[in-house]
Structure formats: structure tokens, C-alpha cells
């Protein structure tokens, strides 16, 4: 089921920096060979397969650099996740397949938890949230936008039901 998940497929398109351990034919511009030791930016779906066979080594991509990590640790709700990576949580799940980093997992959880609180508030009153908190709302990544949308529609149908008098 996860194989066909559109968000998963899209998140694997994120580019990651890699170093080639061997020369790889066909990878370069117009199918030229890429010499060993050169640095390339590959989409994750390609990098993962090559890394499993040790043809390339994957380095820490920008979304998980220490700059971003510190920003997220300090104030998760003020970081525009969308500009960093359009599907941050899915991408961390992907990266954790190849890189083992306990701190990254914990950081993603804490970030999600803190941002989910603000998302829950925004769901109750989207107009107000857009006016006051527009940076946050515009900086939500795809998964968080989905959360906001479903939470809001649940709340709206509940309010509509509560105000209805069926007699």
C-alpha cells in the first residue's frame, strides 16, 4: 500500500548530495560517465538504490543539516518547513532507512507534536489563523496541510450539526 502512496512517491523526489565511490556510466550529462569521487545531487529514489550496493555514499541533505536542526529544536513552529522540504516527515522516514540517526527521529517527533498543536488551533478558526499566523500556515508542509484540512472539515461538520434543529 505504501508503494502506491502518492505523497511517498513525491517525497522520494527530494535531491540528496552524494559522492560516487566508483565511476558510474550513464549518470552524467547526456549519458557520460561520472568519475569516482565526484559529488552529485541525486533524487532519493536513485540514491537509495545506488547506496545499498555501495556505489555512492549519501551525505546529510540540507533539511537535516545542523542549521535546520537547531532552528527546529529552538522554535519548531516558526520554521517554514515547506521551503526546506515539501514533505518533511515522509522524507525523514525515507532518510532513516539509509542513515541511522536516533536524534533525527526524536527531532521529527517533537517538531510534529508542537506544530500539530498550532494546526489544531488553526483548524478551529482558519480565517483568524490566516490573519495572525500566516507565516506558519504558509510554511506547512504537505502532511500538515492535510491535517489542517481534515481537522477543519471535521470541526465544521460538527458545528453545522450542532446548530441544526431537525424538528
Amino acid at each position, binding site marked *: 500500500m505504501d508503494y502506491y502512496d502518492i505523497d511517498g512517491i513525491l517525497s522520494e523526489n527530494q535531491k540528496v548530495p552524494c559522492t560516487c565511490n566508483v565511476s558510474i556510466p550513464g549518470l552524467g550529462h547526456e549519458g557520460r560517465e561520472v568519475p569516482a569521487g565526484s559529488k552529485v545531487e541525486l533524487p532519493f529514489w536513485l540514491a537509495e538504490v545506488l547506496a545499498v550496493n555501495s556505489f555512492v555514499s549519501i551525505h546529510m541533505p540540507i533539511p537535516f543539516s545542523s542549521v535546520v536542526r537547531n532552528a527546529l529544536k529552538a522554535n519548531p513552529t516558526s520554521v517554514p518547513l515547506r521551503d526546506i522540504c515539501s514533505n518533511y516527515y515522509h522524507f525523514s522516514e525515507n532518510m532513516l532507512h539509509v542513515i541511522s540517526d536516533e536524534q533525527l527521529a526524536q527531532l521529527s*517527533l517533537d517538531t510534529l507534536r508542537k506544530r500539530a498543536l498550532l494546526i489544531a488551533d488553526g483548524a478551529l478558526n482558519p480565517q483568524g489563523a490566516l490573519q495572525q499566523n500566516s507565516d506558519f500556515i504558509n510554511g506547512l508542509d504537505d502532511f500538515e496541510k492535510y491535517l489542517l484540512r481534515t481537522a477543519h*472539515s471535521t470541526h465544521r461538520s460538527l458545528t453545522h450539526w*450542532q446548530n441544526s434543529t431537525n424538528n
Partner: protein
Amino acid sequence: MALPRELEATFSPEEIEFLAGNEYIDIVPLETMDQLPLVSATIPIMKPPRKCRVPLWLALELKRQHRARIVPPEWLDLSNLQSLQEQEMEMDMFSKMPFRWLETAHLLLNACPDDIEDVEEVRRILLTIREARQSKARAGLEAVNEVQLALDNLGAMEINEIRPLFRETMNRMRKIVQVAEEE
């Protein structure tokens, strides 16, 4: 099954309200009515002024036809609600409301306001209780992790309201932790 987008994540309030219709409630029939053999139970002969215990959906229908008066359930009276409200304000946990309190109260307040004493006051108290619980549920979001979350004494409609947000968040967390632990 392909559902419309709004129903993919959770039940609609109308569906939860429908489920609440199966709870039993007391009525006082206003005229004599024959036995009703139904699938799940047989409704006995109803003779005024003796009270009779029927499913809520039947009670509402009889009330609509002016053939019975509904006796409000014990928890829906003013003094009980006032003490529940005090409990709700004092405790951090949710107070013990009946599981289907929100939808049952909604149905009864719409169908038979004349059978409930101090209807306006009851309405006001229910609204206060609901708001207090809503803010507690939102605070509960802070404690969410990938394994479990205990929110005791939530009503059916309230669970339905928070289900999408909490479930998706916990799912996402669980996937991240699962991957991290595999290494």
C-alpha cells in the same frame, strides 16, 4: 470502498447521532398502543399512565406524533449537570459523562424541550461542559506520542471529532519511530 472525502477520515456527526438512537429511554404514553414485535426486541403494550422503556428512536417518533411524553434520563437534570460541570472545571481529566451524552442531549433538546425542566439552563450548562472538554482534548494533543494516548471518559461524538488529527499524527510518528528502530 470509495467514500466522499469528508467521510474518509471519520464518521459524520449524523451517523454518530443515528447510533445513539438505539439507547433505551423511558416514555409516558399518552394513548394505549399495541405490542410491537421488532427484530431486536418486542416493545410491550403501552398503557397510559404507566412508564415504558423503549429505544430512543421510537421515543422520538412517538413524541413527534404526540403519542407520548419523554422522561429525560437521570443525568440530564439540572442539579446533576451542575455537579458535573463543577467536576469538569476542577479536574484535569475528563469527568464521567455518559458515553453518548452530546448527541443524546442534542436529540432530546430538539425534540422535547417541553419535557425537560429548566431547558435553557440545561442548554447553557451543556455548552460550558462541552467547551471545557474541548480545551482539555486540545491540551491532550501535547502528550501525543507514537505508542499510546489515554483520554478516558471522552464521549462518542468527541472521539469522532479528534479522530482524524490524532490518528494521522500518531501514525506518522509511529512510522518514523519504526524505521529508526529497524537500523
